[in-house]
């Protein structure tokens, strides 16, 4: 016979006011196997835990049921309590009489009846609990950071500083990300490159950071502490060791294509460095546009290279590496504006996105920092800025607020006025959102000192008229429609996660929301962790945010990764599937339902009537199994059983409920 102890928590008045706990205890004492029932005002307090520990020893309890709040809240607490008294922690069960009972039912008699039933169910399950042992496994002391924008750079530096090896993987030929494209930053107007490039150099020279640019994630396997990742380092066609970064190759290259870094505002060569401060400062050959690779002629770069670094024969390298922790920092894209025909983007060169505006005012941009109209290279006089293009738009765009547009548009209005004192900025807005340190002051400065005309309304149509653009809008404060002649129209385009974020999420086994932002483990309390242990999130891949927030989050993600990497071993969850080989028929119906490839087949030899026989059975890899139980359900002979949630335990629960 079992010796089960039932501990009932009042949770102050949270449970005690709605459930008659005296009756619950009285009934509990009559349940099969129960030898003790006691209560405490707060079972999770030191006094409550002492009661549990002492009773386990005094009453020689072999199972413990705590009737309290949700197991998601305090299961771990009470497991530790039991362990401290020498009881296997997995012999503890929780009856959730707060969230599932006292808080949702008002009638005391009903709630008491239900609480008794919940305790009975937990007792029935506990009676069938088995002691389980958690395995220890070693942690690989190396981190992977995916994406080398400001978030990835910061995370890599923070992890590298503690002495752990970090691999920083970047898809494009250079690190720097979106921040490298920006001109100035709000609300301080310090130059983006001036604060970013030193960090990029730090990354390049850091002894613990290994840079993989022009590389992508090919496959991810494994689990927390032991991820096994395959990287594809794409062929640069340049020998990095030999290249001196002199730049003769791209001066001489005859093929020109739209430059991605310049948002298509200027041309780059087929062999190129994306921008002057690129790290590493090694060119790359864009094979799709290179004459050597498309037409098998030219080869000028190879001829002129003084270091003989050009190597047309290079091929993609697959690199396999083990990591203890992964930080995902893949950043953002802009929404596609094809759906928004009324703004005329793409139909006229003077209708541009804010990102393009950043390049036009940037000293290293296509115009050398002179803000000129793309159509005729003349200074603009009237510039119309339109907020919320694709943001807060549930019919054609994204329903969420992109968060940064109000502030960078104020910045653009200020930069415009500083460059051309006679110019005029018009800003069409729906709401101006300036929640942030010095943000409101900055916005007011744009209005009061720099004379930006803010019009509360949105634009219905933009169309060319002569060499100008006609803008039809509205000002809903004066209830007047507005017609404006503009030289330049700037669209504050909504941000979205990178187009292939969902695919990467699937590879990593981390969830994405309806807009493909990666989902944090808890919106308030675990904002930098993903649902998958050992994978952390930083920057705009998790939601729209500005630079300081991104840096803070990257630091947080790095701290979490460091805490994980500094452990020598981790404990595995022992609630994994278990095969009863004598029942297993080797049908392997379990194999295809396992999402973690934790099941394999193995051949066992057994003696039947004195004869040796070999047969096939399923085998579980405990380290890979995450304990979902899909295999236990799929198993026809009932050989597969998920420990902690066995068939016997769950059936006992059902029986106890329906008693």
């Amino acid at each position, binding site marked *: 016979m079992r010796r089960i102890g039932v501990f009932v928590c009042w949770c102050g008045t949270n449970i005690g006011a709605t459930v008659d706990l005296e009756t619950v205890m009285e009934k509990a004492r009559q349940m099969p196997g129960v030898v003790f029932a006691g209560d405490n005002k707060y079972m999770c307090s030191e006094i409550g835990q002492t009661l549990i520990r002492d009773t386990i020893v005094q009453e020689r309890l072999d199972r413990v049921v705590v009737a309290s709040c949700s197991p998601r809240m305090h299961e771990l607490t009470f497991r530790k309590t039991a362990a401290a008294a020498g009881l296997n922690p997995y012999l503890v069960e929780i009856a959730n009489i707060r969230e599932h009972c006292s808080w*949702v039912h008002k009638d005391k008699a009903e709630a008491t009846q239900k609480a008794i039933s919940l305790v009975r169910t937990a007792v029935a399950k506990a009676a069938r609990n088995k002691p389980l042992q958690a395995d220890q496994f070693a942690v690989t002391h190396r981190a992977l950071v995916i994406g080398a924008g400001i978030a990835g750079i910061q995370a890599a530096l923070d992890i590298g500083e503690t002495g752990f090896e970090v691999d920083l993987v970047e898809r494009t030929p250079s690190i720097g990300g979106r921040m490298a494209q920006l001109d100035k930053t709000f609300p301080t107007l310090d130059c983006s490159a001036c604060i970013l490039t030193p960090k990029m150099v730090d990354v390049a020279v850091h002894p613990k950071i290994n840079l993989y640019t022009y590389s992508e994630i090919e496959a991810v396997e494994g689990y927390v502490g032991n991820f096994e990742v395959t990287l594809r380092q794409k062929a640069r066609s340049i020998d990095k060791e030999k290249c001196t970064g002199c730049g003769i190759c791209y001066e001489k290259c005859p093929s020109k294509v739209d430059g991605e870094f310049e948002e298509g505002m200027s041309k780059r060569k087929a062999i190129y460095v994306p921008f002057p401060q690129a790290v590493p400062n090694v060119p790359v050959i864009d094979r799709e546009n290179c004459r050597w690779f498309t037409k098998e002629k030219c080869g000028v770069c190879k001829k002129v290279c003084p270091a003989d670094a050009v190597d047309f024969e290079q091929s993609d390298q697959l690199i396999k590496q083990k990591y203890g922790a992964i930080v995902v920092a893949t950043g953002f894209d802009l929404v596609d504006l094809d759906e928004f025909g009324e703004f005329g983007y793409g139909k006229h060169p003077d209708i541009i996105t804010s990102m393009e505006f950043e390049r036009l005012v940037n000293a290293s941009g296509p115009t050398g920092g002179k803000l000129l109209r793309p159509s005729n290279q003349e200074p603009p006089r009237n510039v119309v800025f339109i907020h919320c293009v694709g943001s807060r738009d549930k019919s054609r765009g994204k329903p969420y607020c992109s968060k940064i547009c109000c502030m960078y548009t104020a910045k653009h209005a200020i930069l415009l006025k500083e460059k051309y004192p006679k110019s005029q900025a018009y800003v069409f807005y729906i709401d101006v959102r300036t929640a942030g340190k010095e943000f409101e002051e900055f916005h007011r400065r744009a209005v009061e000192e720099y004379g930006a005309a803010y019009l509360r309304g949105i634009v219905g149509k933009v169309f060319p008229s002569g060499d100008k653009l006609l803008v039809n809008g509205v000002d809903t404060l004066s209830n007047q429609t507005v017609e404006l002649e503009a030289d330049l129209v700037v669209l504050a385009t909504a941000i979205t996660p990178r187009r292939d974020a969902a695919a990467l999420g699937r590879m990593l086994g981390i969830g994405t929301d309806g807009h493909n932002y990666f989902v944090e483990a808890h919106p308030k309390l675990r904002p930098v962790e993903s649902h998958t242990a050992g994978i952390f999130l930083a920057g705009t891949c998790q939601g729209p945010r500005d630079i300081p927030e991104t840096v803070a989050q990257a630091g947080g993600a790095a701290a979490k990764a460091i805490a994980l990497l500094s452990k020598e071993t981790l404990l595995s969850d022992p609630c994994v599937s278990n095969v009863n080989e004598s029942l297993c028929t080797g049908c392997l119906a379990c194999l295809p339902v396992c999402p973690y490839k934790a099941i394999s087949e193995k051949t066992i030899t057994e003696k039947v009537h004195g004869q040796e026989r070999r047969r096939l059975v399923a085998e579980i890899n405990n380290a890979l199994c995450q304990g979902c139980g899909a295999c236990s359900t799929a198993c026809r002979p009932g050989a597969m059983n998920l420990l902690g949630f066995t068939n016997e335990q769950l059936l006992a629960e059902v029986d106890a409920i329906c008693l």
Partner: protein
Amino acid sequence: MSVVEEHHLFEPMIVAFCCNWCSYAGADLAGTGRMSYPANVRIVRVPCSSRVSPNFILRAFQRGADAVVVAGCHPGDCHYVSGNYHARRRFSALRRFLEFVGIETERFEIHWISASEGNKFAAIMKDVTDKIRVLGPNRKLRDVR
């Protein structure tokens, strides 16, 4: 006693299998938000909706449950990648089986309830209870005891 009165007095027993990551957390949230629903519902915590074997559901009906609800993460959001898809397939087959043996299909429901949908959890539980109150007790498959 009229049929209506009998139904009115009848308090159904409803067993809900909730996955730990979404629906059980959703039920917790219903508690945290004090969203009341009928006390007829008893929740069994499972790691994933794919852990719920048709056996458990049949056993519940056999032991006298008047309705069974299986709740899991929304399709695509499964904590274990694909568990709820297995559950969905499995239970669409089970539903037809239950119909075949004469159990009203209203007595077996599958729902996708995320960890943030406490109000949805409470609403579904209320809805199921109301429906079963009208439908009356489950007499099929029930053990003679």
